[in-house]
């Protein structure tokens, strides 16, 4: 599904300019017709049927010329209509795909977003462990802190290794890793206590605190990693939601406005063409009446009859055009 722009919509400005240009062209055509009729009247004295034929022929040519110019704009409107219809279909598909993504993202939401509290927690645990080691093992403060931090780092490293191996989702992975981390820390603390000749309760306290420290380090990083994923999920969810909003906005506002504008443009085009043709007919009727008025009384009835025949022909062309203009409009999308 490709929603990236392949359309070549002419902007509404360009279409408006095309309309203005068409209006001007049609007016120019009518001016030429009128000036021809006037110049003919001025230069040619004869008032006969051939004169009327020449007038009618000129007017019919003007109507055809108007048809041709208007058809270019009509094609643009039709082309744009089908682009709008295609865009509507594409957007419908996009909305469906994004909605599916949104549902999936919402389903896998993770509430573990307490990384500030987790950071404080691990600091507190390290401090408590360092204090305990210092008091229990009787070694220096720096050494106690190093040991406590090492324990937490060890636990965190285990969590990261689990994440990197993508085993975190397995049901057995987290408890098993936690057990391993606690056991390893406990064994290490016991070994250090033995080396330091510390027995009994002190040794037990050192082992317990070491295990607790490592487990806090592990749990905190596991929570942070989940939080990082949660952050990524939220960022993506936000983008999908915004993408949906944009698609709906185009489907519900932009495309209907575009269709309405195209309908108006089409109606305006029909009206423009109709006006052009009626004006051309009017020019013919006026000029023909002038010619008949100047003719000899004996020839006037025949000229009038000939004029009426020519008017019928022009009206037929006009009806044919109007029929084409209406038929040329595709059914609304």
């Amino acid at each position, binding site marked *: *599904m*490709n*929603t*990236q*722009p*392949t*359309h*070549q*919509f*002419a*902007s*509404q*400005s*360009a279409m*408006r*300019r095309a309309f203005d240009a068409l209006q001007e062209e049609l007016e120019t055509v009518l001016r030429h017709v009128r000036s021809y009729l006037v110049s003919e009247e001025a230069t040619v004295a004869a008032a006969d049927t051939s004169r009327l034929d020449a007038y009618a022929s000129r007017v019919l040519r003007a109507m055809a010329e108007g048809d041709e110019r208007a058809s270019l704009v009509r094609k643009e409107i039709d082309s744009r209509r089908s682009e709008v219809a295609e865009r509507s279909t594409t*957007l419908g598909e*996009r909305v469906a*795909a*994004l909605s599916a*993504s949104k549902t*999936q*993202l919402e*389903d*896998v939401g*993770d509430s573990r977003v307490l990384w500030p509290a987790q950071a404080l927690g691990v600091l507190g645990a390290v401090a408590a462990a360092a204090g305990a080691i210092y008091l229990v093992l009787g070694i220096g403060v720096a050494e106690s802190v190093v040991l406590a931090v090492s324990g937490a780092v060890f636990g965190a490293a285990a969590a990261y290794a689990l*994440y990197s191996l*993508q*085993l*975190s*989702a397995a049901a057995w992975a987290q408890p098993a890793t936690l057990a391993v981390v606690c056991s390893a820390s406990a064994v290490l603390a016991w070994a250090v206590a033995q080396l330091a000749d510390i027995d009994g309760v002190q040794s037990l306290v050192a082992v317990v605190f070491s295990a607790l420290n490592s487990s806090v380090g592990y749990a905190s990083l596991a929570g942070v*990693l*989940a939080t990082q*994923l949660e952050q*990524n*999920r939220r960022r*993506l969810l936000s*983008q*999908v*939601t*915004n*993408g949906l*909003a*944009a*698609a709906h*906005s*185009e489907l519900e*506002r*932009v495309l209907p*406005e*575009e269709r309405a504008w195209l309908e108006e443009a089409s109606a305006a085009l029909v009206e423009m063409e109709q006006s052009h043709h009626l004006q051309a007919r009017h020019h013919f009727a006026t000029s023909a009446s002038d010619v008949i008025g100047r003719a000899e009384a004996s020839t006037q009835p025949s000229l009038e009859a000939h004029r009426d025949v020519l008017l019928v022909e022009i009206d037929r062309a006009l009806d044919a055009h109007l029929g084409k203009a209406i038929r040329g409009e595709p059914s609304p999308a």
Partner: protein
Amino acid sequence: MSMVSSVLRRPDGLPAPRALRPSLGDFLALLWAALVGSVILAPVLVGVWYFMGGVALAVVWAAWLVLASVFVARGLANALGRSIQGWREPTAEERAILHAACVRVCVAAGVDPERYTLRVARGTRNAHSSGRSVLAATADVITGPTAVGGVELEAMLAHELAHHRHGDLILAGPTWWLLLPLAFVDTLSRALAAVPLIGSRLALALWFPFRAVVFPFRTLSCLSGRPRELLADRFAADCGYARPLEHFFTDSADSARGGSGGLVAWMLDTHPGATDRITALRNADA
């Protein structure tokens, strides 16, 4: 976690932003502005210290620095953008065209169009982003005989949208605030220059240190801004507007051919040249 990871695949047609926060250069420019502003405010701060003590000095100085952060807020940043850039509300026709183009860009970029405000910019044949949510284009590209094609207008808006997405303008408001003392010095030097006899000498005395301060800031902003312009072009290309953008740059390059201006002009130019941008777009395609 692996189930979550499998779901966290970006849907087709939703390009990722090319950056998420302002550039290092923007941060450095902000720091430089804070330093320069502090130096210019030093006489005032010394006065505060002399009359009210060290604590008052610290509070005033800290308040001045912290106040810069309020210009990150959307309303203030947009208002500031308006006063500096001077854009106007679009007419009904301009709004219809801009809105349609903006919505289409937002569909391609995966962004909510309602978050952005559309305005008409001053000038010719250009578009810019301003504040925290303003997208503006000049009137001549929207309507009229020189209006660009629909897709080209979308391409321009996509580029400007990228600046907002990448956080390129977040620090603009705070930087403006911190540079206000410098702006005051500039106004003062112009006023001094009008003083008969000695005015020009006084203004000249201010001019050198002023330029010495402004030049590094401007260079820093421009040098860090230029890669961000290319990044914004890349984001617009990711949204599918590579060809229309290239077409716009080609037209702009054809209409704006002129002298090169040398190294300094290049250093102070906030935008890469049209040729460089076209080349970058074509390389991105390749």
